[in-house]
């Protein structure tokens, strides 16, 4: 039986699989135990490594000594205690580790894994009372269902009040003139203007001159001056005219009289 070989494998695998840590090993393999059981050459190697390392920790010690050397020189009971602790922690909530073989009844089909799981962590229920951090905001007096019910009730009661007025035409009427015809009845009566009797336009012969044709009136460029010429007796003497008197015509000084 190679018990130490078994321990080497068990402890090495526990460290490699991160099931155990070097601190777990040094918790049992104390410096006092090392000083008592570790050979001097291994101590020399350990001291050399520690002096050359920037930081001395359990990892350095275990790596320097090595698990095979630990299992070789440290008492097996210590190594076994270390392995037992690791196994107990790894088993966690499983059944307590028996030290003697398990005997089961042939007829009883009770599996060994009937141990109930460990109780779940009791979580502290969060207090419902909010922490007053900012300004106090009053808590809603109604629940959401109450608010919804109140809104529905409001809609039912407000529905008759919000009846719509008859729809009116929002757009201008079409340009058919129908509206103007109906509006003409409301207009104030107006006097009908009798059209002036216009003389029937004389039919012109192609040889007649166009009356609107300036060139055809027979008025030359210099004749219009003679046509607009007036005689002296046709001029109005504004100084003798009464129509031009203003309200200040009573004044004797003649001021304000417009000439």
């Amino acid at each position, binding site marked *: *039986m190679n018990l130490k070989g078994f321990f080497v494998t068990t402890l090495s*695998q526990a460290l490699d*699989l991160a099931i155990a840590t070097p601190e777990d090993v040094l918790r049992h393999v104390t410096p006092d135990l090392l000083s008592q059981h570790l050979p001097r050459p291994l101590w020399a190697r350990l001291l050399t490594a520690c002096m050359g390392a920037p930081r001395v920790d359990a990892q350095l010690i275990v790596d320097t000594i090595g698990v095979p050397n630990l299992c070789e020189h440290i008492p097996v*009971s210590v190594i076994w205690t270390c392995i037992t602790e690791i196994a107990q922690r790894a088993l966690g909530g499983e059944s307590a580790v028996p030290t003697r073989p398990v005997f089961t009844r*042939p007829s009883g089909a009770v*599996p060994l894994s009937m*141990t109930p799981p460990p109780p779940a962590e009791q979580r502290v229920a969060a207090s419902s009372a909010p922490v007053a951090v900012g300004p106090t905001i009053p808590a809603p007096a109604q629940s959401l269902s109450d608010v919804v019910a109140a809104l529905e009730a409001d809609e039912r009661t407000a529905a008759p009040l919000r009846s719509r007025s008859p729809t009116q035409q929002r757009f201008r009427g079409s340009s058919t003139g129908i509206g103007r015809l109906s509006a003409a009845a409301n207009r104030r009566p107006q006097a009908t203007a009798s059209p002036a009797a216009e003389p029937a336009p004389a039919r012109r012969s192609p040889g007649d001159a166009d009356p609107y044709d300036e060139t055809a009136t027979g008025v030359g460029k210099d004749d219009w001056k003679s046509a607009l010429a007036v005689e002296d007796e046709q001029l109005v003497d504004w100084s003798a005219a009464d129509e031009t008197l203003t309200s200040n015509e009573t004044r004797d000084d003649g001021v304000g009289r417009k000439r």
Partner: protein
Amino acid sequence: MSSDQRQAWFAKMMESGLENQVFAPQDVLAHATPDVLASHLPPELLSRVLASSLASGSMTPERVLETVTPELLAKHLPHGVLWACIAAAAARAGVTTGAV
């Protein structure tokens, strides 16, 4: 530690214990009883165990562990059962805890 790591560690311990003769296959089956095996091994593995035994004409602990390897033991059986096997072997070897 994850469950995979623990499973790998127990597989290695079982393998090492068998290799180093810390315990024998019959010691394993003293804990991994037929009830335990029947309760935890999957049907296909049970079938293979039975087929192997039928082929060889006997069902011995060694032949069972040839089929139900340490990896499969650690995968399907409760680790407490495996640890009980290891602890019992340590106790038989005279290894005790605490005393130096």
